[in-house]
């Protein structure tokens, strides 16, 4: 089963969106909303596309608006991968 791990997400947030410990506290990073993390819509697309590329699990564009936190992206990948 494909998985986008918490560590991979933290890396994605840092490298793809410029969110680091300096911009948001580490402990609840994954459950903060992208909005609170300062990620604009392009930044969310970039993170979603990275999760897709890393795991091979397709994330359709129309699913993206519901992915409001880093964990929701991770959960989406896990659920699709379980179905497959």
């Amino acid at each position, binding site marked *: 089963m494909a998985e986008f791990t918490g560590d991979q997400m933290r890396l994605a947030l840092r490298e793809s969106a*410029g969110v680091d410990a300096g*911009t948001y506290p580490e402990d609840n990073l994954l459950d903060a909303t992208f909005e609170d993390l*300062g990620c604009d819509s*392009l*930044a969310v697309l*970039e993170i979603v596309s990275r999760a897709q590329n890393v795991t091979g699990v397709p994330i359709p564009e129309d699913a993206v608006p519901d992915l409001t936190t880093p964990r929701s992206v991770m959960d989406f990948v896990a659920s699709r991968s379980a179905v497959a």
Partner: protein
Amino acid sequence: VTGRTLVTGLGVVAPTGLGAEEHWAQTLAGKNMIDRISRFDPTTYPVRVAGEVRVFDGPEKLPSRLAVQTDRWTHFALYATELALADASLDPATVNEYELAVITASSSGGTEFGQREIERLWSAGPEYVGVYQSIAWFYAASTGQISIRHGMRGACGVVCAEQAGGLDAMAASVRQLRAGARVVVTGGTDASLCPYGLTAQLTTGHLSPSDDPDRAYRPFDDTATGYVPGEGGAILVMESEESVAARGAGTVYGEFAGHAATFDAPPGRGREPGLRRAAEQALARAGVTPDDVDLVFADAAGRPGADRAETEAICALFGARGVPVTAPKTMTGRLYAGGAALDVATALLALRDQVAPPTIGVDRVDPGGPLDLVRSPRDLRLRTVLVLARGHGGFNSAAVLRAA
């Protein structure tokens, strides 16, 4: 509104340093900042020396979320804007956001960013191309990011006229001030010292193939072999006289008093290049005659034909050895969209300190020749300075700066 246009803030990011003062001190010292390219291995390229911004830590100074979305050329512009606003003691939040305009020059867009994404496209596939490519590469990206970051919602624009763009962006800024803007953030930067950016520049055939940083760029020398590319530029805060008076702005570097742009006829038509006409019209618009000009910043193409054409244009206006001429860009290389913007910043510092900065690398140019080249800092009574710029493809621009 037809009052004077004043420059109240300078932000420099250049091979000569970060900030106007560091740049000015290095420029007066006549230190050559051209060196072997270090941003990538240039061994297999026909051009191997350049003027790099070596000490830039802008990405660390910028918000990280913004830094990952933008090219190095925009990092330069954003950081230079911060410096310029601080220098002008201007907090944009204190001005009506619709009276704050942003007009910059761009020549290559975000080539380094674009190269990374093209590499991903060809090595991994289209799904690996990052979404920021859509906003990072294009010419207006720096203007847009400056506008967003500082809440400047007045007129925004970008001018692409290669090396002449810096002056043309400032002229466009004057038009916005006359149309009611209070403050314009203007100028230009460039950062094309990556394999893709450099390769694109090579197509002109005008870059110097020399490996010797001290001999590669030697304008007005009959044996010149082309110019050296550089990166960086300058961002200026321009204000209407009313705005300066109303907020009691501290430093006024000088007045952007006149500008004109012309375009060359296609090669082979036998028509005079447009540089002289641009200079003449700029002087007329500033209400001065050649006799009033105390110093000329030359375009200094670094190619014998183009240098002769500039020498002829200058001599046609001022007579042989009729005015001191300088080209501090001999220390940095030509910065494209950043070049003329930096020349304006340097010219304003010259007006402030009443000293003409030197031209280096011209030791073999006849000291008795038709140009009175400033070869070491020269104390002068400076009231009016003419800045010349030419962009590849036929652009000519001239700007007249006057002491405030």
